[in-house]
């Protein structure tokens, strides 16, 4: 099978693995940002920055950010909020799983494309969190908090741009085959090769 993408990373794709310090540092910053005392009026609009950054690392550094990390961060959030224990742990784990499953596909997209893929994950996570709270915890919920789930994807875009810059990630992954003509003669269709990414 001929693919336009070499199995072994080459050229600009061959990057050093993301350092654990960067992953940890960005997650700590994101956690602190979530904990800031946001004004009352816009609290329901504030996305969960911890989840934003966690999903970024699930996509771009799966050897660092795995399901265990998601579970740990979820428990940390649960302890901080003082709500139901395990609520965020479960939803973070599911969101991380979705991101880990999607990540091969996402690598072919620009940041905005990736963010678009993440919309259902963010929204689903927020919905599930509210539903779990509704089922286990308290019979009443402020549904405005759902908007935070929708708002998370647009916020993810600048965050992803900054982290892309820090890790040296580029979308320029598709290395042009040495002899394009040979490939097309061989009948192989270039799925992504035709797309020019800068």
């Amino acid at each position, binding site marked *: 099978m001929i693919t336009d993408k070499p199995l072994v990373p080459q050229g600009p794709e061959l990057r050093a693995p993301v350092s*654990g310090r960067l992953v940890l540092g960005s997650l700590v910053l994101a956690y602190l940002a979530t904990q800031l005392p946001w004004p009352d009026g816009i609290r329901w609009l504030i996305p969960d920055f911890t989840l934003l950054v966690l999903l970024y690392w699930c996509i771009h550094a799966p050897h660092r950010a795995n399901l265990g990390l998601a579970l740990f961060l979820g428990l940390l959030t649960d*302890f901080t909020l003082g709500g139901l*224990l*395990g*609520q965020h*742990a*479960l939803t973070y784990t599911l969101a991380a799983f979705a991101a880990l499953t999607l990540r091969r596909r996402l690598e072919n997209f620009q940041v905005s494309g990736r963010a678009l893929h993440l919309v259902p994950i963010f929204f689903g996570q927020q919905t599930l969190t509210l539903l779990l709270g509704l089922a286990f915890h308290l019979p009443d919920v402020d*549904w405005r908090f759902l908007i935070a789930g929708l708002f998370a994807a647009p916020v993810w875009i600048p965050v992803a741009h900054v982290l892309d810059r820090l890790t040296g990630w580029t979308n320029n992954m598709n290395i042009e085959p040495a002899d394009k003509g040979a490939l097309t003669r061989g009948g192989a269709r270039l799925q992504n090769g035709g797309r020019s990414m800068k």
Partner: protein
Amino acid sequence: MAHAPMFARAMGLPTRLALYCLFSLALMVVDSHYGPWTGLRSVAVRLVYPVQVVLSKPFEFLGEAGDFFTVHGKLVKENQQLILQSQIFASRLQGYAAIKQENEQLRKLLNLPSPPGTRPLVAEIVRVQPDPFDRRVIIDRGAADGVEAGRPVVDASGLIGQVTRVYPASSEISLLTAKEQAAPVQNERNGLRLIVSGTGTDDQLEVRYLDMHADVKPGDVLVTSGIDGVFPPGIPTARVLQVEPPRQTPFAKVICQPIGEIERHRHVLVLIRTEARK
């Protein structure tokens, strides 16, 4: 963490997902059915609380910076102290007014015990929990200052909530406006006993399941009755705005406005027990 070995016999992603999900679900079931894990929680909160306090500092500073430039810093400090003092005095006065309002003769006849010995403790709200389910705030006083779970929380004008969780140096207040929160009250005008509950909005309380013939009128003031043994009697709680006649149910509903200025101040008073009563 090391890189994953190429041919490891590790658990697959779905297996781990299932395992973690089961773990979280078990946690939720245990947490919601077998009471809060106060031990575990208090350890976690002790670790998280300093972070929250530090994070709230820059916002406080921004808020105070304006004052600093317009008014002399010393004056601000003095003013703050005076406000605190006036709040303490107001809460004491509140108690006296309540005692006056009660029928002293009846109390003598019934030989009721004196109102529970409480002492106001000034606490500062350090954080409002961003919880879509509940209305809770965190104050900077905890078990070390004598706060106990269940103690009422008031401000200068009336009842605003109840302490629901106590940690070593902080505690959590459930506001009266939370949907789960209720307080036994008495109509000041005629002594009718009612239970007022929160509605989940800031400026509204309600009395649910009221007898359709009950004597409640707009303008009535509801004060705590004290029969639950939690809230001391006589704390102003709500003012009746409107009585909704029964429509499809056999019960009327009363819409009230909380008297305590909920979510409008940074300082609250926790009525803690005096030592003598222990």
